[in-house]
């Protein structure tokens, strides 16, 4: 247990030449890589060649990173239509591994890698681990799932690139996780934030927190809030960091927070980010919210050109207090997918989480949103767990609590909410991505 305060933090940077590079030098590097990747996809991938020809763009039109706006977009739909290997830009024999999405709906989204792609992936995760204050002396307990899901392997490659010790726990079996974490002396752990909170609560309940050597947590794969980070940090006495990635682009390690928690640093020498107005596709100014779009500048196996992530964020290109010039994307405001339109109002699960956590510990941050349609009206029900701290033997007090939660949520979301109190730990804790919304409307 060793949370480090900002005053006592000593910043370490894995690759200062790249991570602190001047804007002009970086633009030159990005331009070279963009020209190269555009040529590679035009020559090797039928899909891209056709798409570019359709809008009358040739590789020669792309001379610098400034020209990126001339290129066509790629969507998740395109990946589906070219499943599984239609977008390969290298021979199959040079593909050394394939990862995929957790596949919540329909077919998997497949991500093939060359050996260089795997190395770049590990390097980017390693940069993030250093951002989190870790070195080759650390022991990293990885309880992301190992398998097609990129979480487990991604952190594993990162630990390997850093020279740290990886403990490949994979997901599940919380009792065993707790035992290994203590016995093997993990100094950092990596998993989804919802599982991190569940594990933290379990460790606290078992009274073993003081015997752990943890100092950092690396959590991502689902959106989470500052309040949730502080809760995990205060239970375990560690520093937690938000890591972001998506398997199509590379997996975790596309971006990560530093100790200043001022957004997630994007490794834009490999993954060029644009933030665009989802309706007009115009470039958003710094600070303005829009859809995150990535171009993989160095990927060999399956390069993506202007891939629309559906993640909503804003970007900041100013130099961070940590010294890095890597631009920072804000914590996600949700996905265009997760957003629910309820009686005409856009509602994101993260808003519910922020509101519940904002009630000063009165309410557990485990929740589930259920959207129904009754008599042609949308009805939003939020299930909230009654934990020990809020439980009362008086129905009057429980009802008052329920009404208070409903009022707080109504203010936060702008729609009225039915609150249903449920038993503690009855809402599923996810070991992959937490499902926070069930939509029964069949829209």
């Amino acid at each position: 247990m060793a949370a480090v305060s900002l005053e006592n933090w000593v910043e370490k940077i894995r690759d200062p030449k790249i991570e602190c590079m001047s804007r002009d030098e970086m633009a030159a590097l990005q331009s070279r890589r963009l020209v190269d990747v555009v040529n590679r996809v035009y020559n090797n991938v039928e899909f891209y060649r056709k798409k570019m020809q359709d809008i009358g763009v040739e590789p020669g039109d792309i001379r610098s990173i400034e020209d990126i706006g001339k290129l066509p977009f790629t969507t998740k739909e395109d990946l589906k239509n070219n499943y599984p290997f239609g977008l390969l830009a290298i021979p199959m024999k040079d593909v050394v591994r394939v990862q995929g999405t957790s596949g919540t709906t329909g077919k998997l989204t497949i991500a093939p890698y060359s050996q260089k792609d795997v190395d770049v992936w590990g390097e980017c995760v390693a940069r993030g681990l250093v951002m989190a204050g870790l070195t080759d002396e650390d022991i990293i307990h990885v309880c992301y799932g190992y398998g097609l899901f990129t979480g487990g392997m991604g952190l594993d490659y990162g630990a390997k690139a850093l020279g740290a010790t990886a403990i490949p726990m994979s997901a599940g079996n919380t009792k065993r996780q707790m035992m290994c974490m203590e016995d093997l002396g993990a100094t950092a752990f990596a998993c989804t934030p919802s599982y991190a909170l569940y594990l933290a609560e379990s460790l606290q309940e078992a009274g073993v927190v003081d015997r752990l050597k943890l100092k950092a947590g690396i959590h991502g794969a689902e959106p989470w809030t500052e309040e949730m980070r502080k809760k995990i940090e205060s239970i375990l006495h560690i520093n937690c960091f938000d890591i972001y990635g998506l398997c199509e682009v590379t997996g975790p390690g596309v971006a990560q927070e530093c100790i200043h928690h001022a957004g997630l640093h994007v490794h834009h020498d490999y993954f060029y980010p644009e933030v665009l107005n989802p309706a007009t596709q115009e470039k958003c100014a710094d600070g303005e919210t829009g859809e995150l779009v990535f171009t993989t500048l160095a990927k060999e196996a399956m390069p993506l050109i202007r891939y629309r992530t559906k993640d909503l964020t804003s970007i900041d290109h100013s130099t961070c207090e940590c010294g890095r010039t890597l631009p920072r994307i804000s914590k996600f405001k949700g996905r265009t997918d997760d957003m629910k339109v309820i009686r005409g109002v856009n509602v994101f699960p993260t808003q519910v989480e922020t509101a519940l956590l904002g009630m000063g510990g009165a309410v557990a941050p485990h929740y589930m949103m259920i959207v129904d349609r009754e008599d042609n009206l949308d009805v939003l029900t939020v299930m909230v767990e009654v934990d020990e701290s809020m439980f009362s033997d008086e129905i009057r007090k429980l009802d008052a609590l329920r009404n208070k939660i409903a009022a707080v949520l109504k203010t936060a979301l702008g729609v009225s909410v039915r609150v249903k109190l449920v038993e503690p730990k009855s809402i599923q804790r996810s070991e992959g991505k937490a499902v926070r919304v069930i939509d029964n409307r069949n829209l």
Partner: protein
Amino acid sequence: MGITIQQLSVFLENREGRLDEVLSVLAGNDVNIVALSLADTAEYGMLRMIVSDPNKGKAVLKENGITSMLTDVVALRVPHETGSLSKAMHQIVEGDVNIEYMYAFANGDDASAVLKTDDPARVVDILRGSGFDVWEASEAYVSNIKGRI
């Protein structure tokens, strides 16, 4: 043991078999239920119990993932006579104490009622001052077990 007794309360979701699960955990761990009341709302139920060992009851429920809490209540002892409960209630009202809820249980020759109030210690004083008695914890937790009382 004190003159107030501890009630074990459990939050129950309205779903099939949940009450049975809670009672099984207590039974399986030799926790005897002396008195109980089950309040229900549209969405959930509240199970309130006087048990042989409240702390053990809370602990074994927790081991089984069931949240419960202990609350100080008063176990009023009234003779089986018309008007005796009314008289006791009158004294409490006169004493300006609010009763949140109450439920009855049988114990030996007398009738008994569990009272949840905002000031349990004061209720005991009021009742004793007006000729009523309360069950102490050592008596209430072993109510009606053969060979006792």
